[in-house]
């Protein structure tokens, strides 16, 4: 693996780890953040979050990453990875 790929993966991993920690701590989930798979679904048969949890999560991501998820926009709220997509895009936009 070359250095460029290694760096991109390390960046993604750090964002995923922070999101998992935020999820578990803010929503008091009964999981160790380390066991959450990146593609774990937030609702339904995944973590089974509800609308109150979703609001908490939006607040948490804003506090931790400065990312504003529009209320009612469900596209980023599907899996841990889709949350990471939004955070990564925001970081890229800020760096540009």
């Amino acid at each position, binding site marked *: *693996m*070359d250095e460029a*790929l290694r760096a*991109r*993966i390390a960046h*993604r*991993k750090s964002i995923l780890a922070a999101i998992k920690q935020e999820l578990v701590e803010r929503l008091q989930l009964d*999981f160790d953040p380390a*066991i*959450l*798979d*990146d*593609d*774990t*679904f937030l*609702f*339904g*048969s*995944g*973590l089974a979050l509800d609308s109150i949890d979703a609001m908490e999560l939006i607040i948490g991501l804003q506090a931790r990453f400065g990312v504003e998820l529009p209320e009612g926009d*469900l*596209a980023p709220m*599907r*899996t841990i*990875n*889709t949350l*990471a*997509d939004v955070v*990564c895009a925001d970081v890229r936009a800020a760096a540009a």
Partner: protein
Amino acid sequence: MSEAMSSAIVQSRSGNDSVGAQAMDERRDGSLRKEYRLLREGIGLSDYRAMGKFKVLGPASLELVNRVVLADVSRVPIKKMLATFILREDGGVSCETYVANLGDGYLLLTEGASPAEIAGLLANEARDVPGAEVVDTTRETALFSVDGPYAWELIKDLVGMEILGARYLEVVTDQSIAGTPATIYRAGKTGEFGYWIAVGKESAERTWAALLEAGRPFDLALCGSEATDLCKLENRFINVVREGARAGNVLELNCRTMVSRDKGEYRGRAAVESVIERGLRRRLIGLTLERGSPSDKLPELGAAVSYRGVTIGKVANVAYSYTLGRPIAVAFLDVDYAYVGLDYDVGASCARSNARTVSAPFVFNKSLAIRFQESSYLARDSR
């Protein structure tokens, strides 16, 4: 009826290069696309009678079910379901299983292994669990699936407004369709609204006819397994006969939160614990491939995924996504490489495609934007 139903089953694309085969592929693609559109934009009807259906009854029913399935069933409230797997002893997937808590026992709906195989497995486990009785209701029960962003509207017309309050994986008992007692499971594997309707086999024909009749204003039509499998892939539900069958261990399917380490013995536990201790070597991730047309040849299952000439994984499922306008795949990748937003190659050097790793799911579902008070298939033209 069975003939009508079987006519809806679309065969897989052949990949044959002859002109005749290509024309046949195009006709098949047309039917597949039509069925797919029903599931994504209207309502599709499928026959799930082939699923295994087993009741586990008696005071030790929880103990027996927990010995058989991966997840901890003790956390499932009455009239709720959970989706899990029955494993092989080596930790691979034997079948997919929905477990419903009926209050006086459990119902197991299984897919991916023959009902006879599951019946044998349950009977074998039951020998060690006094107080649990297994009843195979596969042949006595018919199961139909109604899926699509407007499936709720049809079901509401059939059984009343209360069904709209049912949440995903909820079991709604004591329903009636065309005078037939029915149980409705709010389930589905398309990412859209989905309702499984269970009736006695003696009422199957009548219920099927009632669904078709009530569905006529909704343009309801039959959908085959290829269309539902495509939706399943787009929404990253595990396909047990594709990626499920190719997983060396269930944890490669991103199912770690399903594992309870303190629930006691279950099939495959030693293999699962072994992987947890030593760490995963590969895991499933989604890939979008270069844009193409539906008639383009797809990569083979098992095709190599590589990075700069080094093989880092294998394709486990692939299909053309009409929504995205390009092929999509899932692949088992070396865990060091299994992250989103990276560009890899798929296939041999003579037919290589560029691929990018992407987050689950592949698509955004129309059902997520549906508001019961404001949405209607029947009124869609007048809006």
